[in-house]
């Protein structure tokens, strides 16, 4: 063999996961079954509906039976085996797989493998993952090694590779800390570890990390993703649920190192355990974490069926590593699971005392009060307590400024006060033909045609310094029907909507201006969506609007609209006010009206009363002492609306108080969705083609025999099911679980399709390691920490992750494990690491969900204003990402590549896109972390080099090399020069985020170091598991 072809050969053997190379006997489950599965089973497999020629190749009896003298497979006799003839046929009509199946023809090598296998006697077996795992014997020297290393070493030797050097101590502690706690090590921990020369330093570290309460959080994030945990229902209503005590149960369970079999049993059947505790019942929320659909018009039974299906599929993916979902509609095409098996599993979950509803009607519930909420209440109370005096001080200051202002106003209104001003009308037009004529008084009269519906469009300018509100007066007129308000049949009007826009002269673009409230003197009293209320003119919905019908129609009526924010027009800008009359039956266009503007703030445009300054003018007072207290209060209220500092402090306090109210609710008794059986079990049927109301044959609870058969008396309920899953004889669960633990430590599993251990899944790269660990897990009472400890103390795990060109070429995916794993950290770890590095992290455990920063408007846009995202205030802002409120329809924006939590997901996503770069550069949490780390660096260190090293040590767990330091120093200096000259910009940069802490560092310096810290946070090294 040439070198190249030998290389290719080695690669083929290694990378296709073959355990045995050419010289050995063919291994059925690893070499033959994958070919048969991929190319043949679609038509000749377990699913009867697509079966061709009545031939099954998945069963030995069927494949080798005498079919009128021919044999699909004749053991020992390749020349008599029809299969071989068909896969090698030159006749395209005979060739298998047929061209129209879009399945690839077999390669020469695959054909040779099949020929050899038949020649060797066509030894049948089960798919590898259905065979019980066994520990392979370790020989001689191997017995002294960590078995992982012994078994990995075997494959390396075959491939003529060796282990890489061990990773540096710094890299190792970082790797271990991220893998076991999801957080980077502290600077002190790094130094201590690096200087610990004791032989068991690694083990001590690992044990310390496993005991850390952050271990439970790290593992919980793994579990929450596959449990599709969310704080909302999903779908149209996407109502909030309060299942977070279950999340805390998960953290607690991991921190107790609860054996995985018990962990499983409690989640499946905690309610069925004898004398079940509240915590055991709480555990069953696992199977209620699916989405629930409260969409109007949906049949709840259809939804309920969906939920049951979700539970079966999730069980399949998480415990069995099987794509059971396929069997919802038909028997599995590749794996030996029938549709009957599927619905027999379904039957275990089919008698939950639920009715398919969502929102707050998603019974069964457990009433539960969380012991972890009290801390959140105290934290929120602290924020309120901190902000109260600030608000009070601002109020005090504002009150002092109020007195001179009041004097000024009294002088100003001596000669009267005009609250409402006529705009300078530039054009008054209708869309559908009504003729509109403006009179000198600003009153506009309709005449001419009377279209059924019409929009009036006023273009106007104003000399007012700002606009806060708009008043619409509707007048009766003799030209109207019955001298009333319109020229329509009834003389009444219906104004369906109003709109306000701004246009700059000469520009093609319009800007929408929002109103926030509207009030009218009278409105028709109606229920539901109908014509009556003035506020309905703000929603752009023609099915509702304002009418004064039922009130005196021969009298003027008036409405006032408040702008969401005061509007300051530039000189070249004009206002466009649009009045829509688009009611269903129409014929109710306003006949006579006037529009006026005001600049008076707040309360003045929320009422029809005379404005405070109007009253003041009317009172005609000379001395402020004589001012009526009530009027003075109104004037003060109005003054405060325009007082920026006070408003800011008040908003901050309001936010804190809203948060306090919210967490107090969370501290009370909550409804947590759990499992509970209904009195009368439901009958279960196979659902034909998976359609919820197409009942096929009836089935009873049982487990798939191909995995592990159980007699009917042992499959009575969910408890039996759970015990079956974690039975010592179940070939799948332990393998699937240790594969997840491997994935946690290496970024990918030994089986790289963690959700599919079936025939279409990938073969394990190291079957012997997988099986060894699986057996070890079961032999050690399902102790997850024991397995993790084995993994992370192995030489395999502790190798350095850097690549040589040779390794990259020979094994780009690291399937042979000749080096450590290098991969980007999950986005939640990146955020948590930034909080930890900057010292902002609030390490509290559990409690109600929090709202980390996310860009404004995300929820509002999706739900057209139905939900608003209010970032958490105070310490709650800096909780770990695990506690971030998870809205199913809009996952936290800062978590890129995360599981979507709609259905169970077990495969990590790891893409590399510019949007991720932008997130890490501009996310508020990252910026605030940069600023705080910069501040500490400046306060604790003196020279630039020291400060830069300080930043690097906190983010990268190491000091900088000379060359690196130069690069950062240059940036620091350039930024500093800029911010020195532009102090305003420096202030802007450092002032985002939470209300100010006292800043003892000069803004320009802080800004410059903040820039550098942000750079380091964005380095590949900072976000990578090395």
């Amino acid at each position, binding site marked *: 063999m040439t070198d190249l072809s030998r290389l290719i050969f080695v690669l083929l053997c290694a990378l296709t996961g073959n355990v045995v190379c050419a010289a050995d006997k063919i291994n059925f489950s690893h070499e033959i079954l994958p070919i048969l599965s991929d190319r043949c089973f679609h038509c000749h497999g377990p699913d009867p509906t697509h079966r061709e020629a009545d031939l099954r190749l998945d069963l030995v009896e069927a494949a080798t039976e005498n079919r009128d003298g021919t044999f699909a497979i004749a053991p020992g006799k390749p020349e008599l085996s029809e299969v071989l003839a068909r896969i090698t046929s030159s006749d395209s009509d005979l060739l298998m797989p047929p061209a129209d199946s879009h399945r690839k023809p077999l390669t020469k090598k695959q054909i040779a493998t099949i020929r050899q296998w038949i020649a060797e006697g066509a030894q049948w077996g089960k798919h590898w993952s259905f065979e019980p795992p066994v520990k392979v014997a370790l020989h001689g020297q191997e017995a002294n090694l960590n078995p992982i290393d012994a078994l990995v070493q075997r494959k390396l030797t075959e491939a003529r590779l060796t282990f890489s050097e061990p990773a540096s101590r710094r890299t190792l502690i970082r790797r271990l800390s991220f893998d076991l706690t999801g957080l980077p090590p502290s600077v002190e921990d790094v130094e201590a570890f690096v200087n610990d020369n004791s032989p068991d330093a690694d083990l001590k570290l690992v044990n310390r990390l496993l005991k850390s309460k952050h271990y439970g959080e790290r593992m919980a994030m793994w579990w929450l993703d596959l449990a599709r945990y969310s704080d909302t229902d999903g779908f149209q209503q996407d109502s909030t649920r309060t299942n977070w005590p279950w999340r805390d149960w998960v953290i607690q369970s991991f921190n107790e190192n609860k054996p995985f079999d018990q962990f499983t049993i409690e989640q499946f059947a905690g309610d069925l355990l004898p004398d079940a505790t509240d915590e055991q019942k709480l555990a069953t929320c696992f199977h209620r974490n699916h989405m629930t659909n409260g969409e109007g018009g949906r049949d709840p039974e259809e939804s309920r069926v969906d939920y049951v299906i979700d539970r079966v599929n999730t069980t399949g993916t998480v415990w069995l590593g099987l794509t059971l979902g396929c069997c919802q509609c038909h028997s599995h095409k590749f794996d030996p699971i029938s549709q009957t098996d599927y619905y027999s599993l379904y039957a275990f979950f089919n008698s939950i005392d639920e009715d398919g509803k969502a929102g707050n009607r998603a019974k069964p519930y457990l009433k539960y009060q969380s012991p972890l909420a009290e801390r959140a209440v105290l934290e929120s109370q602290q924020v309120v307590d901190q902000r109260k005096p600030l608000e009070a001080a601002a109020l005090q200051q504002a009150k002092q400024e109020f007195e001179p202002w009041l004097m000024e106003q009294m002088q100003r209104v001596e000669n009267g006060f005009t609250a409402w001003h006529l705009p300078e009308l530039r054009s008054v037009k209708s869309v559908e033909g009504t003729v509109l004529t403006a009179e000198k008084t600003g009153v506009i009269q309709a005449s001419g045609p009377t279209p059924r519906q019409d929009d009036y469009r006023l273009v106007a300018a104003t000399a007012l310094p700002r606009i806060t509100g708009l008043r619409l007066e509707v007048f009766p007129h003799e030209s109207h029907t019955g001298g009333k308000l319109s020229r329509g049949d009834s003389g009444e009007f219906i104004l369906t909507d109003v709109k306000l826009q701004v246009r700059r002269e000469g520009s093609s673009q319009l800007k929408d201006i929002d109103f926030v409230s509207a009030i009218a003197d009278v409105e028709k009293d109606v229920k539901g969506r109908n014509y009556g209320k003035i506020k309905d003119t703000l929603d752009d919905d023609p099915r509702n609007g304002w009418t004064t019908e039922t009130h005196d129609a021969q009298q003027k009526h008036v409405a006032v609209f408040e702008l969401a924010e005061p509007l300051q027009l530039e000189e070249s800008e004009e206002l466009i006010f649009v009045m829509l009359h*688009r009611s269903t039956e129409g014929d109710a266009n306003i006949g006579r009206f006037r529009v006026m503007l005001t600049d008076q703030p707040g309360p003045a445009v929320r009422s029809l009363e005379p404005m405070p300054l109007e009253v003041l003018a009317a009172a005609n007072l000379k001395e402020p002492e004589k001012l009526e207290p009530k009027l003075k209060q109104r004037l003060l209220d109005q003054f405060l609306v325009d007082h920026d500092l006070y408003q800011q402090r008040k908003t901050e306090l309001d936010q804190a108080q809203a948060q306090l109210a919210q967490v107090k609710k969370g501290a009370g008794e909550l409804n947590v969705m759990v499992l509970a059986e209904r009195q009368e079990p439901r009958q279960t049927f196979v659902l034909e083609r998976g359609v919820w109301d197409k009942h096929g044959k009836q089935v009873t609870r049982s487990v798939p025999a191909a995995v592990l058969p159980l007699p009917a008396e042992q499959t009575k309920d969910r408890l039996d099911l759970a015990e079956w899953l974690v039975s010592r004889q179940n070939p799948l669960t332990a393998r699937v679980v240790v594969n997840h633990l491997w994935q946690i430590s290496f970024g990918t599993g030994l089986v790289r399709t963690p959700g599919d251990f079936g025939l279409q899944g990938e073969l394990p790269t190291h079957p012997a390691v997988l099986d060894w660990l699986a057996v070890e897990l079961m032999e050690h009472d399902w102790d997850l920490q024991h397995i993790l400890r084995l993994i992370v103390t192995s030489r395999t795990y502790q190798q350095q992750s850097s690549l040589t060109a040779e390794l990259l070429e020979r094994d780009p995916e690291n399937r042979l494990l000749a080096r450590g794993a290098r991969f980007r950290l999950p986005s939640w770890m990146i955020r948590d690491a930034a909080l930890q590095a900057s010292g902002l992290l609030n390490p509290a455990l559990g409690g109600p969900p929090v709202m980390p920063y996310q860009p404004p408007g995300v929820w509002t846009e999706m739900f057209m204003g139905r939900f608003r995202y209010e970032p958490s205030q105070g310490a709650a802002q800096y909780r770990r990402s695990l506690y971030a409120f998870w809205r199913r*329809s809009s996952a936290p924006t800062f978590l890129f590549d995360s599981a979507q939590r709609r259905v169970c997901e077990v495969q990590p996503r790891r893409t590399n896109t510019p949007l991720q770069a932008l997130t890490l*550069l501009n996310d508020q949490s990252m910026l605030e972390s940069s600023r705080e780390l910069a501040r500490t660096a400046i306060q604790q260190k003196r020279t630039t080099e020291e400060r830069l090293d300080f930043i690097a040590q906190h983010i990268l767990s190491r000091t900088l090399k000379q060359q690196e330091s130069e690069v950062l120093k240059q940036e620091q200096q350039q930024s500093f020069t800029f911010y020195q000259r532009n102090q305003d910009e420096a202030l802007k940069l450092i002032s985002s985020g939470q209300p100010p802490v006292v800043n003892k560092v000069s803004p320009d310096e802080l800004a410059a170091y903040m820039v550098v810290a942000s750079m380091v946070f964005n380095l590949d090294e900072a976000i990578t598991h090395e």
Partner: protein
Amino acid sequence: MNNPFENTALEETRRYFLGRGAGVSLGAMAFSLLENLRRATAEPKQNLGLPDLPHNPPRTKNVIFLTQSGGPSQIELFDHKPNLMKWAGKELPDSIRGGQRLTTMTANQKQLIMPSRTKFQRYGESGATLGEWLPYHGEIADELCFIKSMVTDEINHAPAMTKFLTGHQLPGRPSIGAWSSYGLGSENQNLPDYLVLISKMKRPSDQPLYDHYWGSGFLPSQYQGVKLRNAKEPVLYLRDPNGMPRSVRRGMLNGISELNQMRLKQTGDPEIETRIRQYEMAWRMQSSIPELNDLSDEPESTFELYGPDSRRPGSYAANCVQARRLIERGVRFVQLFHPDWDHHSRLSSWCIARCRDTDQASAALVKDLKQRGLLDETLVIWGGEFGRGVAGQGKWDSPEGGRDHHPRCFTTWLAGGGVKAGLTYGATDEFSYNVAENPVHVRDLHATVLHLLGIDHERFTYRHQGLDFKLTGVEPSRIIKEILT
């Protein structure tokens, strides 16, 4: 230069190697592996799509999908049934209903027929019929191909829209735009392949537009649609923080790049090289994307063509102008969403409002593309997730009357790239209740759109959890050859 949403070249290699990508066989792997690896480490490529695509000569390069969310009423807008007048107020015959399930909103009321609330008119040489609420559509009737026999299986919004856009009723599959981006890649180096524009509306819509509608499902996330928001920040996290001028940002990126280069030398991990390029792409996007939202360089004639609402940024009409601009810039797939077509009540004031939002601009877009010679290479699709039932919801004869959801027939129109102009395909029964001829399932529409893009939907698969998934799923589907030029 590379595509913004490109994964690492190494990841591409992985894809080849795992035999996941359409038509890439394990058999050819050894040599292509080495070859690809060399390329991966030496010369990173932009997203050129899959190597074995197109399967057939493409008939269109781009797609603009004008998604009308909520289920527009075919009975008022497209599907003219003059004979319904004589059935007004009578109960829908059981023979027609044929056991069709209803949503729980109308399941307990009598199915009394409500004839169309609009008058119909014939337009153009093709003589297409259109309801009076779509006068501008009349002007382009000869450009359009109406499919009046669309069918779906879903009766509620979220499942139906999910199926309409991803081929499956449950979230988790890639959307048709993501499939296109994955298969065909992009021509533009500074913009995503797949952009999503949502009409900004005041009215709170009852149907949220979930991001899985343009999600990448199990495809790598760089293929997901990128929502272009009408906000200060058109794409999330695009804006640098206040107080950070471009010069400082540039300096930072230079430094990051330099330091990452050093790390690349130490670790040899090609992923770092990709990261360096993605940070550069992020920088370019920071200037290329905000300028997309700025329509001020469009001449006055554009706004006259697209109507007064097109002057209002974020409106459907402005988004139609945007769509044309994006196509001009080489974006492969542009998807607009206009919410609030769910007209259960007061149909005649509610539905007309949505028509007024969309009629002129939709027509203008088709005219504009044609004028610019872009219609031949752009497929425009207009449609919602289902249709509406012939029975009135609420009182059939009162102004309050509306219509419930209806999956058995609805109308979608196509225009441009490879589709016959001035054609009406398929027909419904006299109640616009069942398809009478040439049913077109949502799957068939997907197969047809992929075909027009040069993709064979049968061969275009992605392996996920052990199965080869395709947009059109496992049920049979067909390309609607009859509507192709």
